[in-house]
């Protein structure tokens, strides 16, 4: 078995650029460096043509009716901000109520907090143990003041896929706009803005084997036509929705990344699902006290989030330091609070501290999965031998009955 170290298994945080993507980008750093907004010479025309081609490919990937519905941005954080603040500002005379969920990305939650300071009311829906928000919850939360529902396609930490199609039926019926942060799920699970009645969608290139620093916001143009107030003032690019010179090489790469997913996405998801299940079963068959966080049924194919009871997440990451993963442990965050997503599922703080997220991607191999599984097994055993909690558990002591000295 030959694997090259370090192994990158953190594809929910970012993905490497596919070499085919880079190949298409390179000419736009060299001879084709024109500004897509330059209408009077061939440098500009070449750039504009390349941007429009990318727009078509991205529109096709998400089932948009027109490439004009794609607005390029710097990434999903910007897309989320423009969607929420832009829609809120435009529709504020219609209503001031927004619905989202507690497990959303910080780009959504913090934008909502800002809107609350500006006088909007936000409902943060709770999730069930799997991290799912139901269409009924959305229906019950909608009031005559509701203008927007924002729920992610798939969660970045636990990989839970939301029932967007059912939620979209409710929002359409109620005449409320539906935004989704689709970053994690795009090209991995089914996503079609028409079928799901999605009105706005945030996506980013760097989670789909494209470059960092480029993303898009899908903005529906008909049935209904979505309006928003631009959050950046300037030259009126992107039909007035996002000023700023377009990142032409990035957009070209984004387009190629979308095209690869159109052709290979389905096959790739099946392969990642098989690899993920191989990793999960090899670990869980051999170890006791390992828990899956999130849903097994409604889950991104390449994601698995496991809590190794009695082993702290950061110590685990250090022990497997040749493998890049991430943890919901407090020690990996600057706040010293464990993951708010795991807490929202009702996962106890002990298990949240013990969680590890494995994110499999396009370039991971079966040999790597086997290497990681073996390494995890040996390191968990090693760390448990060092854990007073494991010893107490082995002795039959109920850890909940112990008087701990919280600090």
């Amino acid at each position, binding site marked *: 078995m030959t694997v090259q170290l370090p192994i990158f298994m953190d594809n929910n945080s970012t993905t490497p650029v596919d070499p085919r993507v880079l190949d298409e980008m390179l000419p736009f750093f060299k001879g084709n460096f024109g500004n897509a907004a330059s209408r009077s010479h061939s440098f500009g025309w070449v750039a504009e043509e390349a941007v429009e081609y990318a727009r078509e490919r991205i529109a096709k990937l998400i089932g948009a009716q027109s490439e004009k519905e794609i607005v390029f941005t710097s990434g999903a954080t910007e897309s989320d901000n423009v969607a929420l603040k832009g829609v809120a500002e435009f529709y504020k005379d219609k209503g001031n109520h927004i619905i989202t969920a507690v497990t959303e990305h910080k780009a959504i939650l913090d934008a909502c907090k800002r809107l609350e300071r500006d006088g909007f009311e936000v409902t943060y829906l709770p999730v069930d143990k799997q991290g799912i928000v139901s269409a009924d919850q959305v229906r019950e939360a909608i009031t005559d003041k509701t203008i927007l529902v924002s729920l992610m396609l798939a969660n970045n930490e636990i990989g839970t896929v939301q029932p967007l199609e059912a939620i979209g039926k409710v929002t359409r019926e109620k005449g409320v706009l539906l935004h989704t942060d689709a970053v994690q799920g795009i090209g991995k699970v089914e996503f079609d803005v028409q079928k799901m009645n999605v009105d706005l969608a945030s996506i980013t290139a760097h989670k789909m084997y494209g470059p960092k620093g480029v993303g898009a916001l899908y903005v529906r143009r008909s049935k209904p036509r979505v309006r928003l107030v631009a959050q950046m003032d300037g030259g009126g690019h992107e039909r007035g929705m996002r000023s700023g010179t377009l990142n032409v090489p990035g957009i070209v790469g984004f387009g190629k990344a979308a095209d690869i997913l159109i052709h290979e996405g389905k096959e790739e998801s099946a392969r990642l699902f098989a690899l993920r299940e191989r990793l999960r079963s090899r670990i869980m068959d051999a170890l006791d006290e390992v828990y899956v966080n999130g849903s097994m049924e409604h889950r991104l194919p390449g994601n698995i989030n496991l809590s190794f009871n009695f082993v*702290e997440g950061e110590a685990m990451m250090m022990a497997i330091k040749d493998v890049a993963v991430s943890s919901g442990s*407090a*020690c990996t965050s600057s706040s010293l609070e*464990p993951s708010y997503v795991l807490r929202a599922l009702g996962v106890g*703080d002990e298990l949240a*501290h013990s969680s590890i997220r494995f994110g499999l991607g396009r370039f991971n191999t079966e040999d790597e999965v086997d290497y990681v599984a073996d390494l995890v097994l040996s390191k968990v055993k090693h760390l448990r031998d*060092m854990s*007073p909690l494991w010893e107490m558990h082995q002795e039959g002591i109920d850890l909940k009955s112990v008087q*701990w000295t919280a*600090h």
Partner: protein
Amino acid sequence: MAYSDKVVEHAENPRNVGTLDKSDPTVGTGLVGAPACGDVMRLQIKVGEGGVIEDAKFKTFGCGSAIASSSLATEWLKGKTLDEAEQIKNGDIVTELNLPPVKIHCSVLAEDAIKSAIDDYRKKQAAKRAST
């Protein structure tokens, strides 16, 4: 966050991992921290003639810095008298391991564990004296 070489070294090769007999009157046990906070340390000392610490063992549930702090503490404890052991301060551990501010609580926990183990030993000894 990058770890200091000393933290990595202790975390990868922890010294004195293990368990001493809790019921032994010459053994003092300190169990500090809480699972919900992400770190629990158990530090044990075995005290010999003249109040000198003959052996020290630990087990820690916690991050690499917590493991390194407790590993270092056991190293320092061996051969010290109880009075000397009480002088070990969390700041000494921070300096030795080059812990960043966000990890200072790991060293505090180690200091607490030392104190708690010494306390436990002294209580046992007092109880022994009282019963004889």
